[in-house]
Protein backbone atom coordinates (compact mmCIF):
# COMPACT_ATOMS: atom_id res chain seq x y z
CA UNK A 1 0.00 0.00 0.00
CA UNK A 2 2.78 2.42 0.96
CA UNK A 3 4.49 1.61 -2.22
CA UNK A 4 1.31 2.14 -4.21
CA UNK A 5 0.85 5.60 -2.74
CA UNK A 6 4.44 6.50 -3.50
CA UNK A 7 4.22 5.19 -7.04
CA UNK A 8 1.02 7.13 -7.59
CA UNK A 9 2.61 10.42 -6.63
CA UNK A 10 5.70 9.57 -8.60
CA UNK A 11 3.54 8.71 -11.60
CA UNK A 12 1.62 11.95 -11.38
CA UNK A 13 4.86 13.89 -11.24
CA UNK A 14 6.22 12.13 -14.31
CA UNK A 15 2.83 12.41 -15.92
CA UNK A 16 2.84 16.17 -15.45
CA UNK A 17 5.99 16.35 -17.54
CA UNK A 18 4.57 14.09 -20.23
CA UNK A 19 1.46 16.23 -20.18
CA UNK A 20 3.47 19.37 -20.86
CA UNK A 21 5.45 17.69 -23.59
CA UNK A 22 2.34 16.22 -25.16
CA UNK A 23 0.69 19.62 -25.00
CA UNK A 24 3.55 21.03 -27.02
CA UNK A 25 3.05 18.30 -29.63
CA UNK A 26 -0.66 19.04 -29.77
CA UNK A 27 -0.06 22.77 -30.18
CA UNK A 28 1.94 22.20 -33.33
CA UNK A 29 -0.27 19.43 -34.63
CA UNK A 30 -3.32 21.63 -34.40
CA UNK A 31 -1.62 24.52 -36.10
CA UNK A 32 0.19 22.70 -38.88
CA UNK A 33 -0.89 19.04 -38.99
CA UNK A 34 2.71 18.12 -38.36
CA UNK A 35 3.76 15.93 -35.46
CA UNK A 36 7.05 17.46 -34.47
CA UNK A 37 9.20 14.38 -34.22
CA UNK A 38 12.16 16.66 -33.53
CA UNK A 39 10.68 18.04 -30.35
CA UNK A 40 12.61 15.68 -28.09
CA UNK A 41 15.90 16.49 -29.77
CA UNK A 42 15.12 20.22 -29.65
CA UNK A 43 14.42 19.99 -25.93
CA UNK A 44 17.68 18.15 -25.31
CA UNK A 45 19.59 20.74 -27.28
CA UNK A 46 18.25 23.61 -25.19
CA UNK A 47 18.84 21.62 -22.00
CA UNK A 48 22.51 21.19 -22.94
CA UNK A 49 22.78 24.91 -23.50
CA UNK A 50 20.97 25.62 -20.25
CA UNK A 51 23.23 23.35 -18.21
CA UNK A 52 26.31 24.83 -19.88
CA UNK A 53 25.16 28.26 -18.79
CA UNK A 54 24.49 26.96 -15.29
CA UNK A 55 27.93 25.45 -15.13
CA UNK A 56 29.57 28.63 -16.37
CA UNK A 57 27.66 31.00 -14.11
CA UNK A 58 26.97 28.77 -11.14
CA UNK A 59 23.31 29.71 -11.29
CA UNK A 60 20.84 26.93 -11.99
CA UNK A 61 18.03 29.35 -12.60
CA UNK A 62 19.91 31.36 -15.17
CA UNK A 63 20.53 28.14 -17.08
CA UNK A 64 16.88 27.19 -16.66
CA UNK A 65 15.76 30.50 -18.12
CA UNK A 66 18.23 30.22 -20.98
CA UNK A 67 16.93 26.72 -21.79
CA UNK A 68 13.31 27.83 -21.93
CA UNK A 69 14.04 31.01 -23.87
CA UNK A 70 16.36 29.01 -26.09
CA UNK A 71 13.40 26.75 -26.82
CA UNK A 72 11.37 29.77 -27.81
CA UNK A 73 14.08 30.85 -30.21
CA UNK A 74 14.82 27.40 -31.57
CA UNK A 75 11.13 26.81 -32.23
CA UNK A 76 10.78 30.10 -34.09
CA UNK A 77 13.88 29.47 -36.16
CA UNK A 78 12.80 25.92 -36.95
CA UNK A 79 9.47 27.14 -38.24
CA UNK A 80 10.89 30.03 -40.23
CA UNK A 81 13.87 28.32 -41.76
CA UNK A 82 12.70 24.76 -42.19
CA UNK A 83 9.10 23.87 -41.51
CA UNK A 84 7.60 26.75 -43.44
CA UNK A 85 9.10 25.34 -46.61
CA UNK A 86 7.71 21.85 -46.14
CA UNK A 87 5.26 20.81 -48.79
CA UNK A 88 1.99 19.71 -47.27
CA UNK A 89 0.75 17.50 -50.08
CA UNK A 90 1.88 14.40 -48.22
CA UNK A 91 1.83 13.63 -44.52
CA UNK A 92 5.19 12.00 -44.89
CA UNK A 93 6.99 15.22 -45.78
CA UNK A 94 6.68 16.90 -42.40
CA UNK A 95 7.64 13.73 -40.56
CA UNK A 96 10.70 13.09 -42.70
CA UNK A 97 11.95 16.67 -42.41
CA UNK A 98 11.50 16.53 -38.64
CA UNK A 99 13.53 13.31 -38.60
CA UNK A 100 16.25 15.10 -40.53
CA UNK A 101 16.25 17.71 -37.79
CA UNK A 102 16.59 14.98 -35.17
CA UNK A 103 19.70 13.68 -36.91
CA UNK A 104 21.21 17.14 -37.27
CA UNK A 105 20.57 18.11 -33.67
CA UNK A 106 21.79 14.83 -32.22
CA UNK A 107 24.85 14.90 -34.44
CA UNK A 108 25.75 18.44 -33.51
CA UNK A 109 25.19 17.79 -29.81
CA UNK A 110 27.37 14.70 -30.00
CA UNK A 111 30.13 16.65 -31.69
CA UNK A 112 30.08 19.42 -29.12
CA UNK A 113 29.35 17.55 -25.92
CA UNK A 114 30.19 13.93 -26.68
CA UNK A 115 27.99 10.88 -26.25
CA UNK A 116 28.54 10.18 -22.58
CA UNK A 117 25.79 10.74 -20.09
CA UNK A 118 26.34 13.98 -18.23
CA UNK A 119 24.76 14.65 -14.89
CA UNK A 120 21.71 16.90 -14.93
CA UNK A 121 21.28 18.30 -11.47
CA UNK A 122 17.91 19.10 -10.01
CA UNK A 123 17.27 22.50 -8.44
CA UNK A 124 15.52 20.93 -5.46
CA UNK A 125 15.96 17.83 -3.40
CA UNK A 126 14.56 14.69 -4.93
CA UNK A 127 14.22 13.10 -1.51
CA UNK A 128 10.60 12.31 -0.80
CA UNK A 129 8.80 13.77 2.20
CA UNK A 130 7.31 11.14 4.41
CA UNK A 131 3.92 11.56 5.99
CA UNK A 132 3.06 9.01 8.68
CA UNK A 133 5.90 6.81 7.51
CA UNK A 134 4.76 6.83 3.88
CA UNK A 135 7.07 8.38 1.32
CA UNK A 136 4.99 10.73 -0.79
CA UNK A 137 6.77 13.17 -3.02
CA UNK A 138 9.83 15.34 -3.11
CA UNK A 139 10.42 19.07 -3.33
CA UNK A 140 11.40 18.54 -6.91
CA UNK A 141 8.07 16.83 -7.59
CA UNK A 142 6.33 19.86 -6.13
CA UNK A 143 8.38 22.08 -8.40
CA UNK A 144 7.37 19.94 -11.37
CA UNK A 145 3.69 20.19 -10.49
CA UNK A 146 3.95 23.92 -9.96
CA UNK A 147 5.81 24.58 -13.19
CA UNK A 148 3.51 22.45 -15.32
CA UNK A 149 0.41 23.88 -13.69
CA UNK A 150 1.67 27.38 -14.35
CA UNK A 151 2.41 26.62 -17.99
CA UNK A 152 -0.94 25.02 -18.59
CA UNK A 153 -2.70 27.92 -16.90
CA UNK A 154 -0.77 30.46 -18.95
CA UNK A 155 -1.58 28.63 -22.15
CA UNK A 156 -5.25 28.44 -21.25
CA UNK A 157 -5.33 32.16 -20.57
CA UNK A 158 -3.41 32.90 -23.74
CA UNK A 159 -5.69 30.89 -25.97
CA UNK A 160 -9.03 31.70 -24.44
CA UNK A 161 -8.64 35.20 -23.08
CA UNK A 162 -6.32 37.11 -25.35
CA UNK A 163 -6.62 38.36 -28.88
CA UNK A 164 -3.29 36.79 -29.82
CA UNK A 165 -4.71 33.46 -28.73
CA UNK A 166 -7.80 34.07 -30.84
CA UNK A 167 -5.62 34.88 -33.82
CA UNK A 168 -3.56 31.75 -33.26
CA UNK A 169 -6.61 29.53 -33.08
CA UNK A 170 -8.18 31.13 -36.14
CA UNK A 171 -4.94 30.75 -38.11
CA UNK A 172 -4.79 27.09 -37.23
CA UNK A 173 -8.38 26.35 -38.19
CA UNK A 174 -8.81 28.57 -41.22
CA UNK A 175 -5.63 30.16 -42.52
CA UNK A 176 -7.09 31.74 -45.65
CA UNK A 177 -10.08 33.25 -43.88
CA UNK A 178 -7.78 34.53 -41.16
CA UNK A 179 -5.53 36.23 -43.67
CA UNK A 180 -8.54 37.88 -45.26
CA UNK A 181 -9.37 39.24 -41.82
CA UNK A 182 -5.93 40.75 -41.47
CA UNK A 183 -4.35 38.08 -39.30
CA UNK A 184 -0.63 37.56 -39.88
CA UNK A 185 -0.97 33.79 -40.20
CA UNK A 186 2.72 33.20 -40.82
CA UNK A 187 3.61 35.09 -37.68
CA UNK A 188 1.10 33.10 -35.69
CA UNK A 189 2.64 29.87 -36.92
CA UNK A 190 6.07 31.04 -35.86
CA UNK A 191 4.72 32.03 -32.48
CA UNK A 192 3.00 28.65 -32.13
CA UNK A 193 6.21 26.77 -32.86
CA UNK A 194 8.15 29.02 -30.52
CA UNK A 195 5.71 28.49 -27.66
CA UNK A 196 5.52 24.76 -28.25
CA UNK A 197 9.27 24.39 -28.34
CA UNK A 198 9.61 26.45 -25.16
CA UNK A 199 7.11 24.19 -23.40
CA UNK A 200 9.03 21.19 -24.73
CA UNK A 201 12.28 22.64 -23.39
CA UNK A 202 10.68 23.24 -20.02
CA UNK A 203 9.48 19.64 -19.97
CA UNK A 204 13.01 18.57 -20.82
CA UNK A 205 14.44 20.54 -17.90
CA UNK A 206 11.88 18.87 -15.65
CA UNK A 207 12.44 15.32 -16.82
CA UNK A 208 16.18 15.11 -17.43
CA UNK A 209 17.19 15.24 -13.75
CA UNK A 210 14.90 12.27 -13.07
CA UNK A 211 16.25 10.17 -15.92
CA UNK A 212 19.85 9.23 -16.52
CA UNK A 213 20.91 12.79 -17.30
CA UNK A 214 21.99 14.65 -20.40
CA UNK A 215 22.61 12.68 -23.54
CA UNK A 216 21.81 13.47 -27.19
CA UNK A 217 19.23 10.67 -27.16
CA UNK A 218 17.97 11.34 -23.66
CA UNK A 219 14.51 12.42 -24.79
CA UNK A 220 13.85 9.60 -27.26
CA UNK A 221 11.82 7.60 -24.77
CA UNK A 222 10.23 10.73 -23.36
CA UNK A 223 9.15 11.64 -26.86
CA UNK A 224 7.56 8.25 -27.43
CA UNK A 225 5.84 8.36 -24.05
CA UNK A 226 4.54 11.85 -24.69
CA UNK A 227 3.45 11.01 -28.22
CA UNK A 228 1.54 8.13 -26.67
CA UNK A 229 0.06 10.56 -24.16
CA UNK A 230 -1.02 12.88 -26.94
CA UNK A 231 -2.57 10.00 -28.88
CA UNK A 232 -4.32 8.71 -25.76
CA UNK A 233 -5.87 12.12 -25.33
CA UNK A 234 -6.55 12.61 -29.02
CA UNK A 235 -3.94 14.58 -30.95
CA UNK A 236 -6.33 17.48 -31.40
CA UNK A 237 -7.22 17.94 -27.78
CA UNK A 238 -5.17 20.03 -25.37
CA UNK A 239 -7.20 18.79 -22.40
CA UNK A 240 -6.73 15.26 -23.68
CA UNK A 241 -2.96 15.75 -23.83
CA UNK A 242 -2.86 16.67 -20.16
CA UNK A 243 -5.06 13.75 -19.17
CA UNK A 244 -3.11 11.42 -21.45
CA UNK A 245 0.15 12.60 -19.90
CA UNK A 246 -1.05 11.76 -16.42
CA UNK A 247 -2.33 8.36 -17.55
CA UNK A 248 0.97 7.48 -19.20
CA UNK A 249 2.90 8.77 -16.19
CA UNK A 250 0.92 6.59 -13.81
CA UNK A 251 1.20 3.56 -16.06
CA UNK A 252 4.96 3.97 -16.34
CA UNK A 253 5.35 4.45 -12.64
CA UNK A 254 3.33 1.36 -11.71
CA UNK A 255 5.00 -0.79 -14.34
CA UNK A 256 8.48 0.35 -13.34
CA UNK A 257 7.66 -0.03 -9.68
CA UNK A 258 6.10 -3.47 -9.81
CA UNK A 259 7.62 -5.09 -12.89
CA UNK A 260 10.94 -3.30 -13.32
CA UNK A 261 12.11 -0.21 -15.13
CA UNK A 262 13.11 -2.07 -18.26
CA UNK A 263 9.51 -3.12 -18.87
CA UNK A 264 8.26 0.47 -18.99
CA UNK A 265 8.93 1.18 -22.69
CA UNK A 266 7.22 -2.09 -23.59
CA UNK A 267 4.17 -1.01 -21.61
CA UNK A 268 4.12 2.30 -23.47
CA UNK A 269 4.24 0.50 -26.80
CA UNK A 270 1.38 -1.76 -25.77
CA UNK A 271 -0.70 1.19 -24.62
CA UNK A 272 -0.03 2.98 -27.88
CA UNK A 273 -1.03 -0.05 -29.92
CA UNK A 274 -4.19 -0.61 -27.91
CA UNK A 275 -5.29 3.01 -28.17
CA UNK A 276 -4.41 3.36 -31.85
CA UNK A 277 -6.29 0.22 -32.77
CA UNK A 278 -9.16 0.62 -30.34
CA UNK A 279 -9.81 4.33 -30.25
CA UNK A 280 -7.57 6.08 -32.77
CA UNK A 281 -9.29 9.38 -32.03
CA UNK A 282 -8.18 9.18 -28.42
CA UNK A 283 -9.87 7.90 -25.30
CA UNK A 284 -12.02 10.97 -24.96
CA UNK A 285 -13.26 11.35 -28.49
CA UNK A 286 -16.87 10.60 -29.19
CA UNK A 287 -16.25 8.83 -32.43
CA UNK A 288 -13.76 6.02 -32.74
CA UNK A 289 -12.80 6.88 -36.28
CA UNK A 290 -10.10 9.24 -37.32
CA UNK A 291 -9.45 10.27 -40.85
CA UNK A 292 -6.00 11.68 -41.27
Amino acid at each position, binding site marked *: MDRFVFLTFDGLSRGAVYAAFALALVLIWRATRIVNFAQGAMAVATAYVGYSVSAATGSYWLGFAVAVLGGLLLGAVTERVVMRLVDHSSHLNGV*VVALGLVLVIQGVLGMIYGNEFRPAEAPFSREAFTVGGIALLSRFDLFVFGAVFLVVALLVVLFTRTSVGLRMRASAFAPDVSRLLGVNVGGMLTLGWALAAAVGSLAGMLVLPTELGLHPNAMDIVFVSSFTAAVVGGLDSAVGAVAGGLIVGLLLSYVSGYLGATVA*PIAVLLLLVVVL*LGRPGGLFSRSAARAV
Partner: protein
Amino acid sequence: MSVTLAPKVDAGTRVPAAPRKHRYLVWAVVAAVLIVALTYALPPFRNYQLATVGAYLCVTAGLTVLTGLNGQLSLGHGALMATGAYTVAMVQEKLAGRGQWTLLVAVLAGIAVATVAGGIVGLAAARLRGPYLAGLTLAVAVVVPAIASTFDKTFNSDQGLSVYVDPPPLALGATFPYERWQAWLAWAGALLTVFLLATLVRGRFGRALRAVRDDEAAARIAGVNVARTQVLAFVVSAACAGLGGALFAVLAQSVSPGAFPISLSLFLVMAIVIGGLGSLAGAVWGAVLLVALPALTHSLTELIDVSPAVAQRLEGNLPLALFGITLIVVMLAAPGGIASLRLRRRKA
Protein backbone atom coordinates in the same frame (compact mmCIF):
# COMPACT_ATOMS: atom_id res chain seq x y z
CA MET B 1 -8.62 -5.37 -62.09
CA SER B 2 -9.90 -2.33 -63.87
CA VAL B 3 -7.99 -0.11 -66.21
CA THR B 4 -8.16 2.88 -63.89
CA LEU B 5 -5.79 1.04 -61.64
CA ALA B 6 -2.64 1.45 -63.62
CA PRO B 7 -1.26 4.97 -63.30
CA LYS B 8 -0.61 6.68 -66.63
CA VAL B 9 3.10 6.70 -66.08
CA ASP B 10 3.14 2.94 -65.94
CA ALA B 11 0.97 2.38 -68.95
CA GLY B 12 3.65 3.46 -71.37
CA THR B 13 6.41 1.45 -69.83
CA ARG B 14 4.52 -1.78 -69.38
CA VAL B 15 5.89 -4.69 -71.28
CA PRO B 16 4.98 -8.37 -71.22
CA ALA B 17 6.05 -9.90 -67.93
CA ALA B 18 8.10 -12.82 -69.12
CA PRO B 19 10.89 -10.95 -70.98
CA ARG B 20 11.11 -8.63 -68.00
CA LYS B 21 11.72 -11.48 -65.66
CA HIS B 22 14.45 -12.83 -67.83
CA ARG B 23 15.97 -9.40 -68.05
CA TYR B 24 16.07 -9.14 -64.27
CA LEU B 25 17.67 -12.56 -64.10
CA VAL B 26 20.33 -11.45 -66.57
CA TRP B 27 20.89 -8.31 -64.54
CA ALA B 28 21.25 -10.33 -61.36
CA VAL B 29 23.77 -12.70 -62.90
CA VAL B 30 25.77 -9.85 -64.40
CA ALA B 31 25.79 -8.07 -61.05
CA ALA B 32 26.88 -11.26 -59.29
CA VAL B 33 29.78 -11.72 -61.67
CA LEU B 34 30.83 -8.10 -61.23
CA ILE B 35 30.66 -8.36 -57.46
CA VAL B 36 32.73 -11.53 -57.39
CA ALA B 37 35.31 -9.91 -59.65
CA LEU B 38 35.28 -6.85 -57.42
CA THR B 39 35.91 -8.93 -54.31
CA TYR B 40 39.09 -10.23 -55.87
CA ALA B 41 40.26 -6.70 -56.62
CA LEU B 42 39.48 -5.16 -53.25
CA PRO B 43 41.54 -5.38 -50.06
CA PRO B 44 39.90 -7.10 -47.08
CA PHE B 45 38.66 -3.94 -45.39
CA ARG B 46 36.97 -2.74 -48.59
CA ASN B 47 35.41 -6.15 -48.99
CA TYR B 48 33.97 -5.80 -45.53
CA GLN B 49 32.48 -2.45 -46.52
CA LEU B 50 31.14 -3.99 -49.68
CA ALA B 51 29.53 -6.70 -47.59
CA THR B 52 27.95 -4.03 -45.40
CA VAL B 53 26.50 -2.30 -48.45
CA GLY B 54 24.97 -5.61 -49.44
CA ALA B 55 23.40 -6.11 -46.04
CA TYR B 56 22.02 -2.57 -46.05
CA LEU B 57 20.70 -3.05 -49.56
CA CYS B 58 18.42 -5.86 -48.41
CA VAL B 59 16.83 -3.46 -45.95
CA THR B 60 16.68 -0.34 -48.11
CA ALA B 61 15.20 -2.32 -51.00
CA GLY B 62 12.43 -3.62 -48.76
CA LEU B 63 11.85 -0.19 -47.28
CA THR B 64 11.65 1.34 -50.73
CA VAL B 65 8.80 -1.01 -51.52
CA LEU B 66 7.03 -0.07 -48.31
CA THR B 67 7.58 3.67 -48.25
CA GLY B 68 8.29 4.55 -51.85
CA LEU B 69 5.80 2.31 -53.57
CA ASN B 70 3.17 1.88 -50.89
CA GLY B 71 3.43 5.19 -49.01
CA GLN B 72 3.82 3.70 -45.53
CA LEU B 73 6.58 5.24 -43.45
CA SER B 74 8.30 2.94 -40.99
CA LEU B 75 10.71 4.21 -38.36
CA GLY B 76 10.96 0.73 -36.90
CA HIS B 77 12.91 -1.17 -39.49
CA GLY B 78 15.97 -1.13 -37.28
CA ALA B 79 13.95 -3.15 -34.78
CA LEU B 80 12.88 -5.62 -37.45
CA MET B 81 16.53 -6.02 -38.37
CA ALA B 82 17.23 -6.75 -34.73
CA THR B 83 14.72 -9.61 -34.70
CA GLY B 84 16.47 -11.18 -37.67
CA ALA B 85 19.90 -10.66 -36.15
CA TYR B 86 19.04 -12.06 -32.71
CA THR B 87 17.40 -15.08 -34.29
CA VAL B 88 20.54 -15.86 -36.24
CA ALA B 89 22.61 -15.56 -33.08
CA MET B 90 20.36 -17.94 -31.20
CA VAL B 91 20.01 -20.52 -33.94
CA GLN B 92 23.73 -20.54 -34.65
CA GLU B 93 24.40 -20.98 -30.97
CA LYS B 94 22.26 -24.13 -30.99
CA LEU B 95 23.69 -25.54 -34.19
CA ALA B 96 27.28 -24.37 -33.89
CA GLY B 97 29.91 -26.47 -35.62
CA ARG B 98 27.65 -28.73 -37.68
CA GLY B 99 28.65 -27.25 -41.01
CA GLN B 100 28.00 -24.40 -43.38
CA TRP B 101 24.37 -25.35 -43.92
CA THR B 102 23.40 -24.19 -40.43
CA LEU B 103 23.94 -20.60 -41.49
CA LEU B 104 21.29 -20.94 -44.16
CA VAL B 105 18.89 -22.37 -41.62
CA ALA B 106 19.71 -19.58 -39.19
CA VAL B 107 19.21 -16.84 -41.78
CA LEU B 108 15.94 -18.35 -42.96
CA ALA B 109 14.80 -18.51 -39.36
CA GLY B 110 15.80 -14.86 -38.95
CA ILE B 111 13.73 -13.92 -41.99
CA ALA B 112 10.80 -15.94 -40.69
CA VAL B 113 10.84 -14.29 -37.28
CA ALA B 114 11.16 -10.81 -38.77
CA THR B 115 8.33 -11.61 -41.15
CA VAL B 116 6.05 -12.57 -38.30
CA ALA B 117 7.03 -9.45 -36.35
CA GLY B 118 6.47 -7.35 -39.46
CA GLY B 119 3.11 -8.98 -39.99
CA ILE B 120 2.02 -7.97 -36.51
CA VAL B 121 3.20 -4.40 -36.94
CA GLY B 122 1.73 -4.37 -40.44
CA LEU B 123 -1.69 -5.41 -39.19
CA ALA B 124 -1.67 -2.37 -36.94
CA ALA B 125 -0.08 -0.21 -39.60
CA ALA B 126 -2.78 -0.93 -42.15
CA ARG B 127 -5.23 0.92 -39.93
CA LEU B 128 -2.97 3.90 -39.35
CA ARG B 129 -1.88 6.83 -41.45
CA GLY B 130 0.87 9.40 -41.58
CA PRO B 131 2.21 10.53 -38.22
CA TYR B 132 0.30 7.85 -36.31
CA LEU B 133 2.10 5.12 -38.18
CA ALA B 134 5.41 6.93 -37.82
CA GLY B 135 4.87 7.26 -34.06
CA LEU B 136 3.94 3.62 -33.63
CA THR B 137 6.92 2.33 -35.56
CA LEU B 138 9.19 4.72 -33.66
CA ALA B 139 7.88 3.21 -30.44
CA VAL B 140 8.77 -0.22 -31.82
CA ALA B 141 12.31 0.97 -32.47
CA VAL B 142 12.57 2.37 -28.96
CA VAL B 143 11.66 -0.87 -27.21
CA VAL B 144 14.55 -2.92 -28.62
CA PRO B 145 16.93 -2.25 -25.70
CA ALA B 146 14.05 -2.60 -23.26
CA ILE B 147 13.20 -6.04 -24.58
CA ALA B 148 16.84 -7.10 -24.55
CA SER B 149 17.09 -6.04 -20.90
CA THR B 150 13.73 -7.38 -19.78
CA PHE B 151 14.41 -10.83 -21.17
CA ASP B 152 18.08 -10.70 -20.32
CA LYS B 153 18.30 -14.48 -19.82
CA THR B 154 17.65 -14.86 -23.52
CA PHE B 155 19.12 -11.70 -24.97
CA ASN B 156 21.80 -10.81 -22.41
CA SER B 157 20.84 -7.12 -22.01
CA ASP B 158 23.15 -4.50 -23.43
CA GLN B 159 26.06 -6.89 -23.93
CA GLY B 160 24.12 -8.86 -26.46
CA LEU B 161 25.08 -12.20 -27.96
CA SER B 162 27.97 -13.38 -30.03
CA VAL B 163 27.25 -15.02 -33.33
CA TYR B 164 29.02 -18.18 -34.33
CA VAL B 165 30.01 -18.17 -37.99
CA ASP B 166 31.96 -20.93 -39.71
CA PRO B 167 35.13 -20.04 -41.60
CA PRO B 168 34.87 -20.01 -45.41
CA PRO B 169 34.36 -23.49 -46.90
CA LEU B 170 37.62 -25.35 -47.35
CA ALA B 171 36.75 -25.94 -50.98
CA LEU B 172 37.61 -22.28 -51.59
CA GLY B 173 41.12 -22.85 -50.40
CA ALA B 174 42.75 -22.57 -47.03
CA THR B 175 43.82 -18.95 -47.49
CA PHE B 176 40.53 -17.63 -48.80
CA PRO B 177 40.08 -14.20 -47.13
CA TYR B 178 37.29 -14.12 -44.64
CA GLU B 179 36.07 -10.69 -45.75
CA ARG B 180 35.67 -11.89 -49.31
CA TRP B 181 33.50 -14.71 -48.05
CA GLN B 182 31.44 -12.21 -46.07
CA ALA B 183 30.96 -10.07 -49.16
CA TRP B 184 29.80 -13.10 -51.09
CA LEU B 185 27.31 -14.03 -48.42
CA ALA B 186 25.91 -10.52 -48.10
CA TRP B 187 25.60 -9.96 -51.81
CA ALA B 188 24.02 -13.34 -52.41
CA GLY B 189 21.29 -12.15 -50.07
CA ALA B 190 21.14 -8.66 -51.55
CA LEU B 191 20.93 -9.73 -55.18
CA LEU B 192 18.33 -12.34 -54.40
CA THR B 193 16.29 -9.73 -52.52
CA VAL B 194 16.47 -7.13 -55.25
CA PHE B 195 15.70 -9.69 -57.96
CA LEU B 196 12.66 -10.99 -56.13
CA LEU B 197 11.41 -7.52 -55.25
CA ALA B 198 11.89 -6.23 -58.79
CA THR B 199 9.91 -9.15 -60.14
CA LEU B 200 7.25 -8.72 -57.50
CA VAL B 201 6.64 -4.99 -57.93
CA ARG B 202 6.47 -5.19 -61.70
CA GLY B 203 3.35 -7.26 -61.62
CA ARG B 204 -0.13 -6.99 -60.26
CA PHE B 205 1.09 -6.57 -56.70
CA GLY B 206 3.23 -3.59 -57.67
CA ARG B 207 0.29 -1.90 -59.34
CA ALA B 208 -1.82 -2.50 -56.26
CA LEU B 209 0.94 -1.03 -54.07
CA ARG B 210 1.09 2.16 -56.09
CA ALA B 211 -2.65 2.45 -56.47
CA VAL B 212 -3.08 2.31 -52.69
CA ARG B 213 -0.35 4.85 -52.20
CA ASP B 214 -1.73 7.31 -54.74
CA ASP B 215 -5.37 7.18 -53.75
CA GLU B 216 -6.80 4.67 -51.33
CA ALA B 217 -10.40 5.36 -52.19
CA ALA B 218 -9.79 5.00 -55.92
CA ALA B 219 -7.83 1.81 -55.35
CA ARG B 220 -10.68 0.38 -53.32
CA ILE B 221 -13.16 1.20 -56.05
CA ALA B 222 -10.86 -0.45 -58.56
CA GLY B 223 -11.11 -3.63 -56.54
CA VAL B 224 -7.84 -3.56 -54.63
CA ASN B 225 -8.00 -4.91 -51.11
CA VAL B 226 -6.33 -1.93 -49.49
CA ALA B 227 -5.71 -3.35 -46.04
CA ARG B 228 -4.36 -6.63 -47.39
CA THR B 229 -2.04 -4.80 -49.76
CA GLN B 230 -0.70 -2.68 -46.94
CA VAL B 231 -0.13 -5.62 -44.62
CA LEU B 232 1.56 -7.55 -47.40
CA ALA B 233 3.83 -4.63 -48.17
CA PHE B 234 4.84 -4.54 -44.53
CA VAL B 235 5.42 -8.28 -44.44
CA VAL B 236 7.55 -8.24 -47.56
CA SER B 237 9.62 -5.35 -46.37
CA ALA B 238 9.97 -6.90 -42.90
CA ALA B 239 11.30 -10.09 -44.45
CA CYS B 240 13.92 -8.03 -46.26
CA ALA B 241 14.78 -6.21 -43.03
CA GLY B 242 15.08 -9.58 -41.30
CA LEU B 243 17.49 -10.80 -43.94
CA GLY B 244 19.48 -7.57 -43.68
CA GLY B 245 19.64 -7.90 -39.91
CA ALA B 246 20.66 -11.54 -40.18
CA LEU B 247 23.47 -10.58 -42.51
CA PHE B 248 24.59 -7.86 -40.13
CA ALA B 249 24.78 -10.43 -37.35
CA VAL B 250 26.90 -12.63 -39.58
CA LEU B 251 29.18 -9.73 -40.55
CA ALA B 252 29.67 -8.38 -37.04
CA GLN B 253 29.60 -11.83 -35.43
CA SER B 254 27.73 -10.30 -32.57
CA VAL B 255 24.39 -8.68 -31.86
CA SER B 256 23.47 -6.12 -29.22
CA PRO B 257 20.80 -3.44 -28.80
CA GLY B 258 23.48 -0.81 -29.43
CA ALA B 259 23.80 -2.08 -32.99
CA PHE B 260 20.15 -1.22 -33.67
CA PRO B 261 19.61 2.27 -32.25
CA ILE B 262 16.81 4.56 -33.35
CA SER B 263 19.25 6.42 -35.51
CA LEU B 264 19.68 3.25 -37.59
CA SER B 265 15.99 3.32 -38.42
CA LEU B 266 16.21 7.00 -39.26
CA PHE B 267 19.29 6.39 -41.41
CA LEU B 268 17.38 3.82 -43.40
CA VAL B 269 14.54 6.22 -44.08
CA MET B 270 17.03 8.89 -44.99
CA ALA B 271 18.87 6.56 -47.33
CA ILE B 272 15.83 5.68 -49.37
CA VAL B 273 14.57 9.26 -49.48
CA ILE B 274 17.88 10.59 -50.71
CA GLY B 275 18.36 7.61 -53.01
CA GLY B 276 15.04 8.39 -54.62
CA LEU B 277 11.91 6.63 -53.53
CA GLY B 278 10.45 5.49 -56.79
CA SER B 279 12.68 2.61 -57.72
CA LEU B 280 14.93 -0.07 -56.36
CA ALA B 281 17.89 1.67 -57.97
CA GLY B 282 17.38 4.36 -55.34
CA ALA B 283 17.73 1.69 -52.69
CA VAL B 284 21.16 0.82 -54.07
CA TRP B 285 22.30 4.42 -53.88
CA GLY B 286 20.90 4.66 -50.38
CA ALA B 287 22.78 1.58 -49.24
CA VAL B 288 26.01 2.85 -50.75
CA LEU B 289 25.50 6.18 -49.04
CA LEU B 290 24.97 4.52 -45.67
CA VAL B 291 28.44 3.03 -45.85
CA ALA B 292 30.23 5.69 -47.85
CA LEU B 293 29.30 8.78 -45.86
CA PRO B 294 30.58 7.52 -42.49
CA ALA B 295 33.70 6.23 -44.25
CA LEU B 296 34.23 9.63 -45.83
CA THR B 297 33.84 11.48 -42.56
CA HIS B 298 36.28 9.00 -41.04
CA SER B 299 38.93 9.86 -43.61
CA LEU B 300 38.09 13.52 -43.14
CA THR B 301 38.68 13.43 -39.39
CA GLU B 302 41.94 11.65 -39.99
CA LEU B 303 43.04 14.47 -42.25
CA ILE B 304 42.46 17.24 -39.76
CA ASP B 305 44.74 17.36 -36.80
CA VAL B 306 42.68 16.99 -33.62
CA SER B 307 42.97 15.18 -30.35
CA PRO B 308 41.81 11.54 -30.35
CA ALA B 309 38.85 12.40 -28.12
CA VAL B 310 37.62 15.09 -30.49
CA ALA B 311 38.27 12.87 -33.47
CA GLN B 312 36.14 10.16 -31.92
CA ARG B 313 33.30 12.59 -31.31
CA LEU B 314 33.45 13.88 -34.83
CA GLU B 315 33.58 10.44 -36.31
CA GLY B 316 30.50 9.23 -34.52
CA ASN B 317 28.45 12.34 -35.00
CA LEU B 318 29.47 14.14 -38.14
CA PRO B 319 27.76 11.56 -40.38
CA LEU B 320 24.60 12.03 -38.32
CA ALA B 321 24.59 15.75 -38.88
CA LEU B 322 25.48 15.42 -42.55
CA PHE B 323 22.77 12.83 -43.12
CA GLY B 324 20.27 15.07 -41.41
CA ILE B 325 21.18 18.17 -43.37
CA THR B 326 21.16 16.27 -46.64
CA LEU B 327 17.77 14.84 -45.83
CA ILE B 328 16.29 18.23 -45.02
CA VAL B 329 17.78 19.90 -48.07
CA VAL B 330 16.60 17.14 -50.39
CA MET B 331 13.11 17.26 -48.95
CA LEU B 332 12.81 21.03 -49.14
CA ALA B 333 14.43 21.37 -52.54
CA ALA B 334 12.17 18.83 -54.20
CA PRO B 335 8.92 20.62 -54.92
CA GLY B 336 6.16 18.45 -53.54
CA GLY B 337 8.63 16.63 -51.33
CA ILE B 338 8.48 12.89 -51.41
CA ALA B 339 6.05 12.65 -54.29
CA SER B 340 8.37 14.43 -56.69
CA LEU B 341 11.33 12.37 -55.60
CA ARG B 342 9.38 9.35 -56.69
CA LEU B 343 8.53 10.94 -60.00
CA ARG B 344 12.04 12.07 -60.69
CA ARG B 345 13.33 8.59 -60.18
CA ARG B 346 10.67 7.01 -62.27
CA LYS B 347 11.41 9.28 -65.18
CA ALA B 348 15.13 8.92 -64.83
